[in-house]
């Protein structure tokens, strides 16, 4: 339910905001064209205005516009892009979406997994020195935004050590294929963006997992299990971590929006050919349709992710499953 609500509210905002703003995108576009020095007579401008209004979906009353907006949206039509003119926006997004999804899903999943295991260990062995050291490292890393960390990795590994390429999704001149060479290249280029997103993800999950595990450890059933002679390893993985998993899954859904935003900027830092770079170009060229399209798609993407987590919830919660 909340899934459709989020999409509905989000897209309505996407619709309303541009119409509330004092700037007319049509006028802006015409200004850009006339600023380039081409002379146009008033009649041509009139014609252009009409065409642009049509393309932007700005024709008719507000209510009609709103209906047109939804109609177009349901058909997956966001109009043509202006910075690569006849290409429709949806095609551009389709080209760059796989890159972002790949980067995002791998880094989210891995960092969540590693963070939870490490966090569980830290919480379980909280008196040990290494656990405290790990905690402190996580505490220092955590507040740094994704892209700042990306810059640091870029400077250290890309610029000073020259271990990894500093830009792009694959090498210049190579074409996407399933050859071994291309795949290694793909990994080499994705490595730094992945690392920057994962390190922070791990730090965040580690911290919350450690707290939860520590709380779980105080509960009666753990104390009984300990007294009953359950081995430490079983205690850790089967009892403590399993019971701490649930809030962590919720946390994953909540942090998704943030991870997504971070991924956009990380892509820009590494010039990775995903949605972030596309958005950057769209903003720089004032491509109104493309910005709208990307905004709408990201709202749907995040909402869908939250929905999936919600649906998977019973799988992880024994109380729901065994009912």
């Amino acid at each position, binding site marked *: 339910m*909340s899934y459709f*609500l*989020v999409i509905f*509210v*989000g897209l309505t*905002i*996407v619709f309303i*905001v*541009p119409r509330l*703003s*004092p*700037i007319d*995108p049509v006028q802006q576009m015409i200004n850009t064209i006339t600023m380039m020095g081409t002379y146009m007579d008033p009649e041509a401008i009139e014609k252009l205005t009409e065409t642009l209004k049509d393309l932007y979906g700005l024709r008719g009353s507000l209510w009609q516009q709103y209906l047109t907006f939804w109609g177009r949206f349901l058909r997956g039509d966001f109009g043509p892009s202006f910075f690569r003119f006849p290409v429709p926006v949806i095609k551009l997004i389709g080209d760059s979406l796989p890159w972002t999804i790949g980067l995002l899903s791998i880094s989210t999943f891995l960092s969540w997994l590693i963070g939870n295991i490490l966090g569980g260990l830290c919480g379980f062995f909280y008196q040990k020195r290494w656990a405290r050291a790990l905690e402190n490292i996580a*505490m*220092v890393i*955590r*507040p*740094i*935004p994704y*892209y*700042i960390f990306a*810059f*640091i990795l*870029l*400077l250290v590994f*890309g*610029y000073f050590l020259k271990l990894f390429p*500093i*830009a792009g999704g694959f090498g210049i001149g190579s074409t996407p294929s399933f050859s071994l060479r291309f795949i290694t290249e793909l990994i080499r280029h994705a490595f730094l963006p992945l690392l920057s997103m994962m390190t922070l993800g791990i730090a965040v999950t580690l911290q919350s997992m450690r707290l939860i595990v520590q709380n779980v450890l105080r509960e009666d059933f753990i104390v009984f299990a300990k007294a009953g002679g359950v081995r430490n390893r079983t205690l850790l993985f089967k009892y403590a971590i399993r019971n701490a998993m649930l809030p962590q899954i919720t946390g994953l859904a909540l942090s998704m*929006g943030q991870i*997504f*935003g971070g991924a*956009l*900027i990380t892509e*820009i*830092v590494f010039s990775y050919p995903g949605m972030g770079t596309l*958005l*950057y170009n769209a*903003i*720089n060229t004032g491509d109104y349709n493309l*910005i*709208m399209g*990307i*905004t709408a798609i*990201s*709202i749907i993407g*995040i*909402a869908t992710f*939250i929905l999936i987590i919600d649906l998977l919830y019973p799988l992880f919660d024994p109380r729901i499953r065994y009912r």
Partner: protein
Amino acid sequence: MNVLRDLLRDGKFRFGFIVICILLFLAFLSFFCPYDPTRWNIFPRDLPPSFQHILGTNSKGQDVFWEATFAIRNSLIISVIAALFSRIIAIIVGLVAGYLGGRVDRFLMFLSDSFLILPLLPILILISSLIKGHLSLFSLGILLGIFGWPWDARLIRAQVLSLREREFTYTSILSGYSTLNLVIKEYFPFVLPLVFSTVINNMGWSIGLEVTLSILGLSNLAIPTLGTTLHWAINYQAMLLGIWWWLLTPIVISVFLFISLYLLSVSISEYSDPRTRIQRIGIAKE
């Protein structure tokens, strides 16, 4: 003062406090800057760090050090505006929702829920790409403030809900306190520590968003902030040209800023939580 002394015993707080003081000092230095920070081509371009230019110069012909002092100042100003503004909304919403309850509460919480679930960044990008160039420091702060309140309003509401059930509420109502008086005089002192610990969090959050928007080129790029400095460095391909000092300066500053703000907020919220405070006193005595 006593509170400060207690807080300074904590290593986290001490580190954060010292770093913030250094950054504030740098921000303060910007008032003594020998030239106008928005002007270009004052010094030769791309000079590496030297005695004359401590942190070198950039491709815009500006001194990186002085630019950085302005960047710190402006970023802090934005974050303070955003934090104050969102605090005002959060306090009002939290108090009203918590105290009145019922339909008002449900409506306000629905509102804050939808703000929480909505993916913030795309919407902010859309808004600021439309009013691009019209964003001053102040309006950017307000814009961030509009989106920064929901979580903290929930915290305050939860606190008020628990206060409402306590004895003293009934006593004061029976002895004829007006609602406004009750809320302001009796509840506010309980809510205040909560507000303080969220202020710092919110400042870090808004600096982060400001940097994000600026990297995308969506704020007023003529004003030096941490974000716009990074934006220009990316735009001029500082990495490929090997002008590392231009890129490294804002990065190092923001890393220290984020870490110290975070440590401060962790330390303060630990302090205001009675359980951990007792723990800490115990540690201090050992």
